């Protein structure tokens, strides 16, 4: 391949660009579907990436909600077991003016047989 041939090819290309015929000359229409497919893929990637961001944001919200529930649960559990001791029950009964107290005898078990 001589320099003249190369120069000729460059000149033809530049002329084709200038006259807007480059894509037609290289028969780019053959790759139209591929170009559209590539465009679709890029578009899908961006869309999916945004969806992933959205989902991760929701995961973060849910984690925070779960943590809030865990804290609430721990607080309620603590409050509940505080009332669950025999002493606490006795004090509460006294406060309410009840005469009921902790048993002096063990509870009886009823058996059928």
């Amino acid at each position, binding site marked *: 391949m001589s320099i003249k041939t190369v120069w000729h090819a460059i000149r033809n290309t530049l002329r084709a*660009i200038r006259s807007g015929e480059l894509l037609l000359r290289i028969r780019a229409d053959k790759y139209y579907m591929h170009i559209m497919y590539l465009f679709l893929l890029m578009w899908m990637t961006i869309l999916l990436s945004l969806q992933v961001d959205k989902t991760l944001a929701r995961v973060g919200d849910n984690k925070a909600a779960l943590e809030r529930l865990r804290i609430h649960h721990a607080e309620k559990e603590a409050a509940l077991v505080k009332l669950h001791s025999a*002493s606490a029950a006795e004090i509460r009964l006294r406060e309410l003016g009840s005469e009921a107290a902790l048993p002096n005898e063990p509870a009886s078990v009823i058996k059928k047989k």
Partner: protein
Amino acid sequence: MREQSEIKDNIQNRDRIHVVMFFLSLLFMVLGGFILAWIIKIQTTYTVDSSVIGLFRPVEQKHVDHPVRGRILATDGRPMAISAPLYDIYMDCTVRKKDYEEEGKDSLERAWRNKARDLARYLSIEFKDRSADDYANMILNGRQKGSRYLRLQRNVDLSTIERVKTFPLFKEGPYTGGIIVEEHEERIYPYDSLARRVIGYVKEQNRIGLESSFDTELHGTEGYEWRRVTDKKRWIRDLDSAAVKVQNGNDIRTTLNVDFQDIADKALRAQINANEDIRAGICIIMEAKTGAIRAMVNLSRGATPQTVLWERENLALREVGEQGSVMKTVTLLSVVEDGYVTSLEQTLPTNHGFVPKGGIKGKPSAYPHDAHISDYERETGRHEITVMHGFEISSNYVFATLAETYYGKKPQEFIDHVYSYRLGEAFDFDIDGLRSPYVPRLDSPGWSSTTLGTMAYGYAMSVTPLHVATFYNGIANKGKMMKPYLVESVEKDGKVIKKYEPSALNASICSPATADTVTRALRAVVNSGTATRLRSAKLPVVGKTGTAQVVLTAEERKGSIDPYHDIAGRKKNQGTFVGFFPADNPKYTIMVTVYSYLSGKSFYGGTMPALAVRDIVDRIYALDEEWRPCLRPGGTYENANE
């Protein structure tokens, strides 16, 4: 001609379009070339200013996830220590003040102040610690003085925080309402002071109890992840970066029974509160067959009786001292096991209460005189006393004489017994800090001609209450001495991942027959000896009382040469009852000891400790499923477990 003219016009038009297109095309090509050259320049020569470079990088943050500390559970699963955050509420009182001043918007400033007064009213109702006016003054004075960090409340729970955030002004958020909420992880102990010394805590360098011993299990492992900002300014996990998942701490299931702990705490508290001379008290309840500790109470006052009773230190593990008469059981067990005493009705000469050196036929020695024996001789007119009666009345003479008679020439044999009962060493325990006892050896500096006999009635050797309870538990368990333990298992999300089984410290400290004989002697103590207050307990209890004088420090003695009395004749006592119940088939071993301040009074194991034990036993009887009567058709009762 006309055609030629039209053709010429067309050619001219086409040439014009061609020229325009050519120049347009050239313009774009020049622009393209310029852009290309610019790109090459940026790529090769251009450097970004370091102050600006951060703005071009994606914003990322390392987020550390702190593990949730594991829970400490009672044996039935009730939580005794839980982790949850608490919050402190602060207020930036100066919020928007400058804006309102600069814009000359007095009406907005007035509206803000009115909302602050409303807020004050709500805060007063919520927290009930200050009046609405006090809160309003705090906030408005803070605004006047430019306070940006005014503390309103500390240690508030999440529910309260969520309510507070709906209050006037605060509901407008931090940029208008000025609310600042700071979170800090806290350990919640739902049962307050109950078993606090056993549960313990971890606060920087201060680490005690189970929280300290099992810190590696409870703590968990920190995790981290990198986070980035989305287009909508939300922080999300960056999936392209490394992340380590947080591992929350494991739960510890203890052997503690909350009800027993509560009962023991209450009974001991009642006894200590009733007497200003009592400084502290401990109670240990241990399951006979396994050695599982069901309750361990350690109550003490501060330097003066006016201070609140609280779990200040783990006396059950740390109060090494001479235990007094409860150690006579050690001597009794040894002489029965060795076959020197074959019957509890075996007699010794009373010798007017003076212990003969070298045994029954020896000469009077340097042992202190035992007044109990003189009283016995006077009351009964007899000059012989059975071993059983000596045990019932807790005679020092009888036990020093037994030791002198049977071990006087071979004291090492007696010392070996003491060590075999594991009273001479600190064994491995679930909580750090079990102190080492002191049991003298023949080559110990203080060993004298009376050391052996003194050891026989519970002085000259110092042990912890846990050692004593473990020894008695061995008798309750027919000679098999179980290792006391506090932790049953380590759990993760309710699943057991590590199980701790009961183990023996000494598989046989004595034969079952010896254990039965000693149990008979312990029963006599309750029936007709020094612990008769326990006769009326709802379950048959057997055990031994002990009253010991505590060796005073040089500071407490204030110049006195007597180690047990200060210059004013005051002393420190400890009274103990230790035993097990029910007598025939022991399920629990129990020990209660009270410690006095320096006092002129004496405190005995048969009084306060025995009363506390009776109270505890009665309540356990009413609660424990073991003793539930079973009602069968026809109205007949029998034990539910039969």
